[in-house]
């Protein structure tokens, strides 16, 4: 039996798939409430969910009984902006409000640092908890990097951290991805940070700025667990891969129908294998020719399989958000949810997909647990 958390615009669903491949969707939690992200902490089994109430702000909840009950925990809160500090979004020329607009991703820390949980937010702050989310503190070393003056929103008005990739080689080594502000790396638990986006390319700025690592828009980063120097990136302007933990990103220029998309999943054991869900381009965020497919490379990005077995045969306009695709620890099971509320599962690395539901709310995030 495998299980996944499916965070949607109208609640959090749990999907179970039995050994025969038959899926079951459980009763939703937080029904009617937008759930941005949900994850299980493999160290203690706790579930975390971030809710975006819209009217009533961002609130985080934790469950210690597999979702039977939830307890509200603290939400990340920014400190007061110091007097005299000018913090202007370069794109909007509006003052950035130091307040959590979205808890975009929650990520358990390294197994050797129990209790540590990371939270990436909009407007661009990374938060760390040392007590399972009971308290949070802004990682000021990242918030205060001079390059933040160049960050701007991608999809939202303000910049946001959507990926916190914990390096399995030891605590304190983390790579984050943010839209728009590139990728950043720490090796000392967040005390210091360095940009890790060289080689990425942006076509939404003048050509002379295309290579500026500080303004890249990686939509999502996915690391190979067994070869942690390998990280895949679905970027706003294409697909990139690093084999040196972000020292240098290499662009993959061909990937089936399109290199535009939001989601990426990395095989946990094979650094040559990753999955993507393409759409036309920035201006037309629908499948190419209305044909919804998944692309998979098994040779480091040199060639791609175009996977469609079990996916819609007619015109389809599903888009998969950046947290909408996940692979399990075996590298064989995939789960994928779309903006039109369709959810698919695969038990054979995408050779065939099974439709779990076509009638869920728009799906923000899926995660095996």
């Amino acid at each position, binding site marked *: 039996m495998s299980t996944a958390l499916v965070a949607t615009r109208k609640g959090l669903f749990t999907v179970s798939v039995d050994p025969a491949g038959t899926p079951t969707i459980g009763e939703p939690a937080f029904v009617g409430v937008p759930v941005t992200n949900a994850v299980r902490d493999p160290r203690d089994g706790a579930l975390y969910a971030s809710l975006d109430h819209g*009217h*009533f702000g961002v609130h985080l909840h934790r469950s210690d009984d597999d979702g039977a009950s939830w307890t509200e925990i603290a939400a990340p809160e920014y400190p007061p902006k110091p007097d005299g500090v000018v913090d202007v979004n370069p794109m909007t020329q509006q003052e950035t409000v130091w307040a959590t607009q979205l808890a975009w991703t929650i990520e358990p820390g390294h197994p050797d640092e129990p209790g540590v949980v990371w939270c990436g937010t909009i407007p661009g702050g990374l938060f760390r908890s040392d007590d399972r989310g009971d308290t949070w503190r802004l990682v000021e070393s990242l918030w205060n990097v001079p390059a933040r003056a160049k960050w701007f929103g991608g999809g939202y008005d303000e910049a946001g951290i959507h990926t916190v990739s914990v390096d399995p080689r030891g605590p304190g080594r983390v790579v984050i991805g943010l839209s728009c502000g590139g990728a950043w790396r720490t090796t000392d638990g967040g005390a210091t940070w360095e940009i890790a986006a060289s080689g990425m390319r942006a076509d939404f700025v003048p050509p002379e700025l295309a290579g500026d690592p500080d303004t890249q828009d990686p939509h999502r980063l996915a690391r190979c667990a067994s070869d942690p120097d390998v990280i895949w990136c679905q970027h706003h302007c294409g697909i990139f891969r690093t084999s040196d933990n972000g020292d240098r990103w290499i662009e993959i220029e061909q990937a089936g129908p399109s290199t535009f998309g939001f989601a990426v999943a990395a095989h946990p054991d094979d650094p040559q294998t990753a999955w993507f869900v393409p759409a036309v381009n920035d201006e037309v965020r629908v499948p190419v020719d209305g044909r919804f497919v998944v692309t998979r490379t098994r040779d480091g990005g040199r060639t791609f399989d175009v996977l469609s077995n079990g996916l819609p045969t007619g015109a389809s306009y599903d888009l998969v958000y950046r947290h909408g695709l996940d692979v399990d620890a075996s590298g064989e099971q995939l789960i994928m949810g779309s903006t039109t509320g369709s959810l698919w599962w695969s038990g054979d690395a995408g050779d065939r997909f099974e439709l779990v539901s076509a009638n869920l709310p728009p799906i923000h995030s899926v995660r095996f647990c």
Partner: protein
Amino acid sequence: MAQVTFAKALQRHVTCPTASIEADSLRRVLDGYFVQFPAARSYVLDEQGAVRRHIAVFVGGELIVDRVGLADPVGADDDVHVFQALSGGAA
């Protein structure tokens, strides 16, 4: 005494019963209320103390003016109503 009432939509998520608070400004009224019901604070105000963008606050039947400082005066007979603004709805 100002009677502070919250929309039913918020009562679903956090404890926020109607209560009477003696104070002469909205900031003092809400501060007094949140002493009694602290969990409700973060549903109405952000961490810098400003009214959340999609919250509507009425004092004496008028929408408040100072959404950051909450300096709007509260008269002896004024009631305070906290609603969700329709601008924040999600279909």
